[in-house]
C-alpha cells in the first residue's frame, strides 16, 4: 500500500535509515544494567519475537517500517536481545525483505544471536502475542494457550524506537480525510492536529463525525474528544455521511469472524453482539437488547482470555456512549439518520433531474428499475434491495436516498421534461 508518510518537522524520526548498527554498538559498550535502565527492558527472556507485519487488513504501519527501515528493526531486535539476555530471535514478516539476508550475518558478527526469519500469513489473531507464539510453533493462531514466560513479543515500532532513539508514535489515518497517511507524531499531539493539520482536514470539507481508534476492537472518539493526545495505531475517520451503528456492526462482524474462538465469552459474545447490531440495523431490535449488550460486554471485558475479546465490545459501547441518539433512532424509531443502514433507506429517482439515460437500468441486479430512453425512470420499492449501484452510477445525481420522508417522484415512467411536482 502506498501511503503518504508524514514525519515530524523537528526531532529524530523512526524513518531514519541506519547503517552499521551504531545504536547496537553503543549498547554493547554500555553494559547490560545501564542498557536495561535506558530501554526499560528488564526481565530475562530466552526468545524474542519481532512482529514486523500488520495484523489487521488495511493496516500498514509495520509493513511500511519494514520497507523503509528493515535494519532499524533488526538493530532494535539486537538491542532488545542484549538487554533481555535473549539468545534466539524470530523475525515474523509477511513480505520478503532482501536487505535482511545481508544484514543479519553482519549483526551476528557483533552479537551471538540466533535469528530466524519467518514468513507468516498475517491474520487479526497474529496481532495477539500469545496467538502469534502459537502460530510460530506451527499451531493455529489461538490466544490463551500456555504463556511461555521465556518468550517476549515486540512490535516493529518498539524495535525501531530502540534503534533510532526516536520518541515518536505512529498512526495510520484512513477514511474521510483529505490525505490518508501514516503519521509520525510526538507524544502529546492531539487527534485534531493529526486530522486537520497533518492529514489536511476532512475530505470534501464535510463535517467530522467520529474517529474509530484502534481498529475493529477500538473506540469511537467524537468531536469532543479530538483535543486529547492521539494514541498509536489505526484511526478510521468518519464524516457526517457515516453511521456509527453500521460501523460498530462491521467491527463486531469482523471480530466474530476473525477471533480465534478458544474462549467462550469472546467467541459467542461477539457473535451475539454482531447479531444484535445486525437486528438493530434492520428493525428487529428487541426490548431487552440494550440490557443484553451491557451484560455481554461486561462479561466479555472481564472474562475473555485475551485483549481481542476484552475489547471486542468497545466499538459498540463507545458508540452507545457518544452517539446515543443515533443508536436510539435505529432501535426505537427504526431509522438510520445517516441513511446508511439499508433496511431503513429507500432509493428514488427525481423526476426533475433524470435524463432517461438508462445507465441505472443496466446496473440494477434485481431489474427493479422501469424506464426507457428519454423517459424518467422509476424504482419499484418492493423489488429494490438497496444495493446502491444505481445511486453510484447515475451521472446526474438524480437518484437519492431517503429515510421516512420520501421525495415525490413519478409513479410510472413518463417522458423526460413532463414531470411537474404538485
Amino acid at each position, binding site marked *: 500500500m502506498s501511503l503518504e508518510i508524514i514525519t515530524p518537522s523537528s526531532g529524530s524520526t523512526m524513518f531514519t535509515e541506519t547503517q552499521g548498527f551504531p545504536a547496537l554498538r553503543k549498547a554493547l559498550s554500555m553494559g547490560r544494567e545501564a542498557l536495561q535502565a535506558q530501554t526499560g527492558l528488564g526481565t530475562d527472556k530466552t526468545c524474542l519475537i519481532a512482529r514486523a507485519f500488520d495484523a489487521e487488513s488495511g493496516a500498514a504501519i509495520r509493513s511500511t517500517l519494514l520497507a523503509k527501515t528493515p535494519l532499524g528493526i533488526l538493530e532494535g531486535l539486537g538491542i532488545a536481545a542484549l538487554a533481555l539476555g535473549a539468545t534466539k530471535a524470530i523475525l515474523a514478516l509477511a513480505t520478503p525483505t532482501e536487505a535482511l539476508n545481508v544484514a543479519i550475518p553482519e549483526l551476528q558478527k557483533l552479537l551471538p544471536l540466533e535469528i530466524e526469519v519467518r514468513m507468516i500469513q498475517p491474520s487479526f*489473531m497474529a496481532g495477539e502475542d500469545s496467538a502469534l507464539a502459537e502460530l510460530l510453533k506451527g*499451531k*493455529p*493462531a*489461538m490466544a*490463551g*494457550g*500456555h504463556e511461555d514466560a521465556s518468550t517476549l513479543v515486540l512490535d516493529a515500532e518498539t524495535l525501531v524506537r530502540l534503534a533510532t532513539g526516536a520518541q515518536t508514535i505512529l498512526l495510520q489515518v484512513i477514511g474521510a480525510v483529505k490525505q490518508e497517511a501514516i503519521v509520525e507524531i510526538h507524544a502529546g499531539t492531539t487527534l485534531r492536529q493529526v486530522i486537520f493539520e497533518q492529514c489536511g482536514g476532512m475530505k470534501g470539507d464535510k463535517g467530522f463525525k467520529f474517529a474509530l481508534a484502534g481498529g475493529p476492537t477500538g473506540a469511537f472518539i467524537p468531536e469532543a474528544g479530538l483535543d486529547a493526545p492521539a494514541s498509536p495505531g489505526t484511526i478510521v475517520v468518519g464524516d457526517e455521511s457515516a453511521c456509527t451503528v453500521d460501523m460498530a456492526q462491521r467491527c463486531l462482524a469482523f471480530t*466474530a*469472524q*476473525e477471533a*480465534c*474462538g*478458544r*474462549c*467462550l*465469552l469472546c*467467541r*459467542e*459474545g461477539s*457473535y*451475539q453482539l454482531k*447479531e*444484535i447490531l445486525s437486528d438493530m440495523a434492520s428493525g428487529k431490535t428487541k426490548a*431487552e437488547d440494550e440490557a*443484553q449488550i451491557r*451484560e*455481554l460486554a461486561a*462479561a466479555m471485558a*472481564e*472474562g475473555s*482470555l485475551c485483549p481481542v475479546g476484552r475489547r471486542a465490545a468497545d466499538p459498540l459501547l463507545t458508540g452507545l456512549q457518544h452517539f446515543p441518539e443515533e443508536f436510539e433512532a435505529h432501535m426505537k424509531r427504526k431509522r438510520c439518520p445517516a441513511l446508511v443502514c439499508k433496511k431503513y433507506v429507500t432509493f428514488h429517482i427525481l423526476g426533475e433531474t433524470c435524463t432517461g439515460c438508462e445507465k441505472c437500468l443496466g446496473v440494477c441486479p434485481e431489474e427493479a428499475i422501469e424506464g426507457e430512453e428519454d423517459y424518467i425512470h422509476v424504482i419499484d420499492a418492493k423489488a429494490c434491495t438497496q444495493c446502491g449501484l444505481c445511486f453510484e452510477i447515475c451521472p446526474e445525481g438524480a437518484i437519492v436516498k431517503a429515510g421516512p420522508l420520501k421525495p415525490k417522484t413519478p409513479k410510472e415512467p413518463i417522458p423526460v421534461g413532463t414531470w411537474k411536482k404538485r
Partner: protein
Amino acid sequence: MVALSIDGQTVEAEEGKSLLQAALDADIYIPHICSHENLDPVGACRLCVVEIEGREGACTSCTTPVQEGMVVTTRSEKLKQMRRLSTELMLSGHPSDCTGCPKFGACELQSLIQYLEVTDQRLRKRVNIVPSDTSNPLVMHDMGRCILCGRCVRACGELRGVGALTFIKKDGRTRIGVRDGLSLAEADCRFCGSCIEVCPTGSIRDQEGLLDPNMNRKAAIVPCRSTCPAGIDIPRYVRLVREGKPSEALAVIREKVPFPAALGRICDHLCESACRRSELSDSISIRALKRYAAEHGDESWKAASRQLPPTGKKVAVVGSGPAGLTAAYYLAKQGHAVTVLEALPEAGGMMRVGIPGYRLPVEVLNAEIDEIRKVGVEIRTSSKVASADQLLAEGYDAALVTVGAHKGIKLPTPGSDQAGILVNAEFLRLAALGTPQPVGERVVVMGGGNVAFDCAGVARRLGAKEVHVICLEARDRMLASPEEIVEALEEGTRIHPSVNINEILGKDGRVSGVRCVSIRSFSFDANGQAILDVVPDSECVIEADTIIMAVGQRPDLTEDFGLPLGRGNRVTVDEITLATPKPGIFAAGDVVTGTKSVIAAIAAGRSAAASIDRFLGGNGQIEEVLAPLSEPNPVLGTEASFAAAPRCDCPEGYDDEKAHQESSRCLQCDLRLRITEQKFWSAYSHR
C-alpha cells in the same frame, strides 16, 4: 499444604493445586466444564468463577492456584448470573433437545443446565448444523453438539502427545476437528479414546455398536480383558512386552493362570476377536505375545506368589485337566493338602490327550505341571475314582470333580456299525498315549470344530494320504478357529462345508466311503433332529477306508459315581459356588459345561478353588499381584501409519524384535480408564 477458606469452610490443599480442584477435593462443587482434572486448565468457559477476598472481579478457580489464607466465595447471585450467561452462550449453538442425544443422562452440559436452572432461551440461537462423521470405525464425531470446551484437543495434544485434534478456524467459525483436514488415521491418531473419555457432551463418542451393551461401560472399553474368561490383564502384559519386560509380562499372566505357555500356543483367544484393533486393521496377536512372555520370561513371578501356611485340610481333585490342576494349584497355595487323582497314566487331561502334541508339545505342558507340583500338589496318575462318596470316606475334607468330557459321541448314521469307524476322543487319546488306533489311506472326519481338525491332523501324521473334513456348517460358520482351518488346508486336508453325510458305505463289513449331499442350511428341531435344506441333485460319494466321528463329547460318568447328571450327562452344580448337591463335593470344567476351552476350564478351576477355600474356612481370596503395579506412560506420541500397522504372525514364536513390533500395535484402550471420571454436581455434599 496451605489452608484456605472456601464458603466459610476451612480447606487444606497441596501447594500448587488449583482452587477448583481444592474445592472439588473438599467435596465442594464449583460448576466447570472446560477444565478437567487430568488436563491443564485454560479458563475458557468461565463457569468456575469465584470471588476472592481482596481481588477485584471474579477469577476462574481452575487457573487460580491456592494460597495460604485465601478467603473464597463460590456462591453469590453475581456468580450465578455469570455462570448462567456462560451456559446460555454455550447453549446458543447447541441442539436444544437433549432427549435425542446418545449422551442423555451422562452429559455434563445437561447436568449443568439442571444445576444452574437455565431454562429460557433469551439469547439469539446460532445455527450449528454439522453432519456427524461416522467414517472412522472406532471414533465418531458429532460436532453439531460440540461446545468447543477444548478438552479433547488438550487430551490429544498435551496428555497423549499426539495432536491429531485441533481447533480449526474456517469461514469465521471455530470448530474442533482433525488437523489439516485429514482423517483420524492419516493424522496418526492412536485411537486411545481419551478424546471420547473427556468429551463432556455427545460430540465425540465410541462408534455406534462398538461397546458391548451386555458389559458395564468400563469393562466394554477394554474388551480383550473383559472377554478373557480368566480376566487376564491383557493390556498390562502387552505393554510390558513392548517395554521389553517379558518377565513382568509373564508375572501378569501368572496372576490369573498357571498355564501361560500352554495357553500361548492353544488358547482359543476370544480376546483377539474382541480386540478393537480389528476394526482398524487386524487384531493384536495376543496369544503369540503370551507365548513370547512365557518363553522369554524368567521365574521372578515366584517372588510375590502367595503361599499360606498349612490349614490341615485335605482336598481331592478328580481329573488332572486344566480345571482340576488350576484348582489344585490355588488350593495348595491357600494352605490345603491337595491330591489330584488321574485315571489315565499321564496328567494334563485334554491338554495332554485331547490336543495333539504337535500343537501343544508334551514338554511345554509337563514343565507347567511341574510348577504345580512344586507348590505341593500331589498328582497320582492311573488312579480312577469310582465314586464321590469313596473320597469323603477316605478322609478328604472336600473334593472337586473335574473329569472333563472324554466320551466321544457316535452318531447313528446308517452304516455306522461297520469296522473302520473311530470316535474323536478315544482316537486322540490313544494317539497321545502312544498306542494309536490305525487309520487307512483315505480318512473322512465328520465334524467342523477344532477337535475335528485335530483328528484330521493326527490322522495325517499316522499315515493317511487323503483327509477330508465334512461338516454341516457353511465355511464362514465353522466352529474351528481360523488358524486351525488354514493350517489344515496347508497340510492338504480337503474341507467340505455345508455337506451332510447321509450314509456310510461299506463292503464286507468294512467302511468304503460316505454318501453325501450339499445343503443350503440346517437347523435342529425340539428333539435334536437335524432339519436339512438339501441342494437337489447334489449327492456324491467320497471314498474312504476310515471314518472319524468328531461331532461332540460328553462326560464319561454314570449314576454310579453318585452325582446327579443332567442334560448331556453333565454334573449339575450351584452356578456360583460350583457345589454339587452332595456336601463337600464340587465340580467344574467340561464335566459341568460340556466341551469348552482350556481358558474356560482354567477360569472354572479358579472359581472352584476360591469356593472350596471358603468351604474349608478360608476367605476364598486367591487373587495375586505378581508384577509391580507401575503407572503406564500416558504419552503415546505419534507413529507413522499406526492405524494400518499390519499384524505379525510367526508360527515359530516371536523374537524380541517381533514381540516389540506386535505389542506396539496395541491401542492401549485401558489408558482411558485412567482418566478421572467427572462427577456431577449431585455427587457433592456442598453444592
